């Protein structure tokens, strides 16, 4: 009898092994003595959570401490433009760089200069997406007017004049002739400008040299010295005629470091170099640029002296994205209104890089520039705007 009962007990236990819980219905237990074997921890697992935890009667008050770091390195300050007293003719100068902490880490330190926007201007009318042409078609024939409009109407801090007509495959404008455009623009506007070539590696050194010569002493920037062309000639021109130079590489921190170093070894002062690690736009490799810019900036602050220059972005690349340039007729139903879709594409490309440390943004669309500049203003202003109680969003009937 006893043996049978033990065997039965064993079998029941075997069957129950796979179950966590057993509910008995309509069962009466008749026993003189019941023995409960309690496994450690069993009750904690079985009891409902409400009974387990008691909500404190009062808030456990805590202090949040701002996690402040120190950085051994800092970014050099680069000045665009030279006033009369400084040997140029600019009424305004623009300073960038000088960061001591990562971008907008105001809880650590207020970096001295805010990121700036430079509008792209071309020396001949070029084919641009319609939403941009709309704003500039009246001035595209004249780069000086174009520059003026970008500054006066759209709040450009700077303009970049791209001498694209010098490209042998476009118009092959001789370097000296193209340089006249720079003189024109300098006479029309009183802000500093940046000078771009056509991107043709054989022709650019000559073009930038000629442009640098006609603007001697103005402290502009030559865009750009890169490893695939005669960068020495460009750096020498910047040195000789008192300009800054853009050190441009393609999505590669080591190459950026290498070129910066070469340019410094050529005798160019560090505070006249800006670096551009290439901007891949939103949706088209932005994450590469994002992380490369971030790595460059953090390495610089941590002390890598070859990377301690301000950063620049060719944000205009965003207009090469289909999401930005394709018309509503073709893609509106799928992607929404181009009026917003285009500018937001360019603006988000700028925004993301500004948050990881980029200082100069070459841009094209007035609406992208407007929201981006507002964003920068809001991030850097020492004033504090009154805002409604933020939790009211829950009951906003929208």
């Amino acid at each position, binding site marked *: 009898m006893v043996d049978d009962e033990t065997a039965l007990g064993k079998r029941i236990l075997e069957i129950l092994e796979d179950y966590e819980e057993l509910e008995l219905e309509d069962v009466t237990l008749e026993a003189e003595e019941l023995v409960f074997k309690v496994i450690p921890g069993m009750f904690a697992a079985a009891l409902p*959570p409400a009974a387990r935890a008691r909500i404190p009667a009062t808030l456990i008050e*805590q202090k949040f401490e701002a996690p402040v770091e120190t950085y051994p390195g800092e970014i050099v300050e680069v000045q665009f433009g030279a006033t009369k007293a400084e040997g140029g003719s600019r009424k305004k100068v623009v300073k960038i760089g000088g960061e001591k902490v990562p971008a907008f880490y105001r809880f650590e330190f207020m970096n001295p200069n805010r990121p700036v926007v430079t509008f792209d201007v071309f020396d001949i009318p070029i084919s641009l997406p319609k939403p941009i042409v709309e704003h500039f078609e009246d001035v595209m024939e004249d780069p000086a007017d174009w520059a003026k409009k970008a500054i006066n109407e759209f709040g450009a801090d700077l303009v970049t004049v791209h001498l694209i007509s010098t490209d042998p495959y476009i118009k092959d404008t001789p370097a000296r002739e193209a340089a006249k455009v720079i003189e024109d623009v300098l006479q029309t506007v009183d802000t500093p400008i940046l000078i771009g070539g056509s991107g043709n590696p054989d022709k650019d050194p000559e073009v930038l040299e000629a442009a640098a010569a006609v603007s001697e002493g103005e402290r502009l920037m030559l865009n750009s010295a890169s490893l695939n062309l005669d960068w020495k000639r460009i750096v020498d021109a910047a040195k000789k005629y008192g300009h800054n130079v853009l050190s441009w590489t393609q999505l590669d921190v080591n190459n950026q470091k290498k070129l910066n170093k070469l340019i410094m070894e050529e005798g160019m002062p560090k505070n006249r170099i800006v670096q551009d690690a290439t901007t891949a736009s939103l949706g088209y490799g932005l994450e590469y640029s*994002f992380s490369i810019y971030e790595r460059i900036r953090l390495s610089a602050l941590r002390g890598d002296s070859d990377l301690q220059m301000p950063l620049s972005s060719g944000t205009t*690349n965003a207009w090469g994205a289909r999401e930005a340039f394709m018309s509503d007729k073709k893609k509106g139903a799928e992607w929404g209104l181009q009026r917003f879709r285009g500018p937001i594409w360019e603006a988000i490309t700028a925004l993301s890089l500004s948050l990881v440390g980029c200082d100069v943004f070459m841009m094209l669309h007035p609406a992208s520039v407007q929201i981006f500049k507002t964003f920068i203003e809001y991030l850097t202003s020492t004033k504090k705007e009154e805002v409604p109680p*933020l939790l009211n*969003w829950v009951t906003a*009937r929208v």
Partner: protein
Amino acid sequence: MAFAYKLIEHELEVKDCKPLATDPKFKKAFEDLKELVTPPVRPVKFGGDGNEVTIGGEEVMYRHELTYFNPTAIAVCVHDEMTEDELIKNVKMISEWTVYRVGAHLRLDAIAVKSVSRNPAKFAKVVKLVVDNTNYPLILCSLDPACLKAGVEVVKNRKPLLYAATRDNWREVAEIALNSGCPVVVASPGDLDTLKSLAATLSSVGIQVALDPGTAWGEGVLADTINSFTMLRRAAIEKEDKTVGWPLVGVPATLWIGKEEASEGEKLETAFKETFLAAALICRYADLLIINSKEIWSFLALATLRQNIYTDPRIHPAVEAGLFAIGSPNEWSPVMITTNYASTAFVVRSDLEQSKIDSWLVIIDTGGIGVESSAAGGQLNAAKMAEALSEYKVAEKVKHRAVIIPGLAARFAGELEDASGWDVYVGPKDSGSIPDFLKSKYKPRDGTRYVGDPDERSPVVLVTNNIRDFYRVKIPLMEAGISTWILVVDADGLPVKEAVETKKLTGEAVKAYMQREEVEKKVSHRELLVPEEAAPLKEEIEKATGWKVTVVPCEKLTEKIKK
């Protein structure tokens, strides 16, 4: 080992190791391991019915240090004073929105249901309606515990996220959370001490929390917002402050406070700003965003940004393979091949775009490996390139058969010509030199070329080494299957017409080529067919070579030869 790897990658959890989790003698080891692999930002899950979303679970401040794990969840608002139609329409729109890009279907993640009415019964009814129309995870939003409680009752089995516990209501909300097992957002805009206190208090009783430090758009206050997110994340990860080691919630929807009566224009402008603010928070540590606009351009931009930022930097991502038009190419534009390693494809594409080269770009699926490595590793070979040319129907796009391959894949040239029937032009090693290449090297090889299997009776056609003219002659002959000799004269790539005008093509030049190529030994006849653009040279060539010259317009060439 495999289990350990999956733990580190957060594909499995410690409790998935059954012996460790169930055997009491491993209890300490279990707890220790759990502690060890719990990310400094703890993961929080909400939702159910097969559609769950995880927020947080992050290990690093900067994505290049490892990777970000759980993409920022994007929740879109509806509320309890919408009409039933409006509500259902919005819920469906949010749940159904999707765009396919770079190998993934982009989607939104959750629906935030707000109690605008502050009426618990009404809220519960609307929550029910939402649940019936979507399987997306929900966030129940009200500062009134009675509303949250009524809402939770309806969706308990789908474990919604509760918004929010504040300094004023935390005890009642904690009660609801404990009873339902739902995670809670603790909110304390602009006051991080209170935020941390709330997190400490609620998590002390085992409630999972997420932190809303306040999201504001405005002068100075935007800096506070971005700084709060940055400080909280840094405190959790670099200072190991476990109390704030929870997911961060951004609420760009705060931009809509007071916009109830706004005009359409103002609403669009608000959506534009909201998108921008949301984008900033995707870049700066938000694990969950609650937005109000329902504009598809906004969804597209945010989902794309999130896809970029949350791409694992340790894996070289591949781009889509296929045939792509760069600029506005036509039937004479060059055709180029590259691989689908994202960086390679991106650089080639941008080089072509920057140089304004209208062209056709064939992107080969090499599993995301670059040209040099894939050519060495076998992911790129002649057969694959030939297959791509035919699969993507490149021949239907162009009237030539000239394909440019990367300089680093030069060794496949011969094999590819045999496999595809296309003429292969070996391009530069760096796509930055493509403009120069097109200018100076993209020309048919001069000398004797042929179509089919010509013999001594086959016709001889003269043309210059210009891409367009050469293929204008060659393609119709190929298609008609007529075996022909083609004598290609080097004229610096100029078309016949310009070569004649600039005297690059002359009777003497033709004579020199005929001698060099020993054409008279190849054929028994003495008739040279020339395109009509070379008509002015008819007598000059006849005099120099002693051959009979017949002028034929290119389009009539096959017809003439057939006769």
